[in-house]
């Protein structure tokens, strides 16, 4: 970051973003975990592929903390390819020639769904901190309303990594009859103290930036870019692994032969992180970052079920009908394998149908977004097995007929 004051990046004009949007909760506001109501509100979403005649081939993709619904599209702000092109698309494990893929921007987000950067109809100004605090369950409630709106009774699969995986778990627990298969990836049933701690560092970085202005920056034509960039830098380290950082950067210097005995970005890893921070602020709203990290912090599925996770998978005292496939990555220290294993143990205790694979990789938490052939083969195999059980085997023929 240069020493001079950066120019203020204009907020994203979400009204002009590509994609679909729907107004929900108009006749009846949606109750939130906090006790407040939200409604009417907007959900921005994208769909790929074709819904079959009996509406049985829908796959909901849930995005992570800083993701959005542009799974396959070139990102309208950054111009980068869709965030999960490796996993979703024609011929990919989540094959858009077979499945009708839906992904929505979470509520509280900043890419078109109602969130702190959107206009509060009551005041005609951005919500800012007047936006109610939301939870993972609230995000899923909003997605359920979207799925109802699309006339889909049961999703063939819900899939997502990290915070997306939390939503997958919440879907399976809140609406077990509406989910045939659940694929929670690199996630946990509870947000750990260490993860809350990292989120708090990020939030404090944002709130310590004077440009945050008590959360009112949008009304004042300001933006806490420095704070948000620092938050992103800290978080980005947690998405990688020591091995991956060493492999990528080591102690290599950035465009120089020697260290400069100063605080410029001497090391490549510093330069890389600064770039990550700066490019993030173009596409993300600082208050959204506060709200969404908070939603993850509050996630504790066991606590919602009398302290025993197994109860979450025993709706009405019976084994959940949902088929699960959990995946973790060996070098992920943000959502380590033991978190997935704890979920597997609870599912076993409920005698649920579950597959679980740990993928060997040094790429850390971010591995779920990257080219990991073994991981993709597992998802493909699991989905094909489920499609067979669900009777979706002739999808390709049905679609082309």
């Amino acid at each position, binding site marked *: 970051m240069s020493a001079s004051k950066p120019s203020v990046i204009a907020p994203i004009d979400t009204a002009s973003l590509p994609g679909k949007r729907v107004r929900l909760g108009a006749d009846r506001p949606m109750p939130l975990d906090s006790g407040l109501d939200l409604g009417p509100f907007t959900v921005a979403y994208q769909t790929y592929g074709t819904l079959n005649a009996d509406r049985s081939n829908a796959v909901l993709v849930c995005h992570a903390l800083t993701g959005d619904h542009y799974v396959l599209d070139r990102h309208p702000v950054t111009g980068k390819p869709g965030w999960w092109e490796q996993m979703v698309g024609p011929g990919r494990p989540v094959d858009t020639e077979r499945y009708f893929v839906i992904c929505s921007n979470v509520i509280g987000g900043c890419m078109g769904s109602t969130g702190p950067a959107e206009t509060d109809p009551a005041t005609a100004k951005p919500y800012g901190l007047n936006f109610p605090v939301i939870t993972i369950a609230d995000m899923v409630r909003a997605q359920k309303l979207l799925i109802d709106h699309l006339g889909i009774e049961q999703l063939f699969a819900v899939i997502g990594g990290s915070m997306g995986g939390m939503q997958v778990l919440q879907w399976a627990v809140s609406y077990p009859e509406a989910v045939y298969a659940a694929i929670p990836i690199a996630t946990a049933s509870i947000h750990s103290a260490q993860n809350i701690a990292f989120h708090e560092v990020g939030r404090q970085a944002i709130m310590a930036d004077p440009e945050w202005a008590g959360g009112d920056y949008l009304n004042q034509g300001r933006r806490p870019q420095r704070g948000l960039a620092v938050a992103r830098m800290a978080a980005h380290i947690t998405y990688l692994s020591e091995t991956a950082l060493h492999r990528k950067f080591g102690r290599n210097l950035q465009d120089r032969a020697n260290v400069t005995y100063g605080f410029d970005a001497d090391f490549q890893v510093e330069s890389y992180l600064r770039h990550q921070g700066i490019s993030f602020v173009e596409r993300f709203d600082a208050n959204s970052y506060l709200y969404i990290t908070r939603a993850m912090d509050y996630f504790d599925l066991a606590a919602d079920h009398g302290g025993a996770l197994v109860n979450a998978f025993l709706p009405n005292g019976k084994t959940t009908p949902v*088929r699960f*496939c959990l995946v973790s990555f060996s070098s992920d220290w943000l959502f380590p394998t033991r978190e997935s*294993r704890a979920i*597997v*143990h609870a599912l*076993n*205790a*409920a*005698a649920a*149908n*579950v*597959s*679980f*694979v*740990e993928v*060997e990789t040094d790429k850390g938490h971010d591995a779920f977004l990257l080219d990991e052939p*073994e991981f993709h*083969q*597992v998802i*493909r*195999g*699991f989905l*094909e*097995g*489920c499609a*067979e059980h669900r009777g979706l085997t002739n999808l390709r023929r049905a679609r082309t007929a």
Partner: protein
Amino acid sequence: MTVLEAPSSTRNGTGRPADIRIDLRLVADMVEPGSRLLDIGCGDGQLLYYLTHEKNVDGRGIELGMDGVHRCVKQGLSVIQGDAETDLKDYPSGAFDYVVLGQTLQAMREPRAVLEQLVRIGKHAIVSFPNFGYWRIRMQLLLQGRMPVTQRLGYQWWETPNIHFCTIADFVDLCRQCGVSIERTMILDRADRVVSHKHGRLANLLGEQAVFLLKRR
């Protein structure tokens, strides 16, 4: 992978589940169609795949080795990576119609505890193991004075994962002690032919391996 064989190749690509190892086939024949089954140490999923497709079984698996787990899940089988000795306690009692432990009992740290778990979580348990009372094994020990190494048990003593060998007579004793009743017995020779349905002295001498259908008394 069972601990008796070298790493096996994956399913032979013909997609014909009918081609399974004879000893697995004998296990499969004990299973009622449409039942719910847990295969412990399911390896690359041969038995599960066969039972799922040929007998419409709701099959699950636990496998210690990640390679096997990956192969299974890629085939659409419901398999988790886990350790039978620590993970079986999670399952509720009577969760499965059958729990299968194929050629793995002798590699367990606590075979007795595992056996008790099998008959707790399964209405039936199917256990197969190599018989250390087999005459060729007895002969090796008697004539050569060395730990037996056979075609099926191809490990030297210092490398074998099989730490708790037993004979058919020993196993029958353990079942009695644990309150486990034996519903069916199959004694196999070296060519996986069934040579007896009893577990007496002769079976203990002639059987290279044994398959038992068990139930908690």
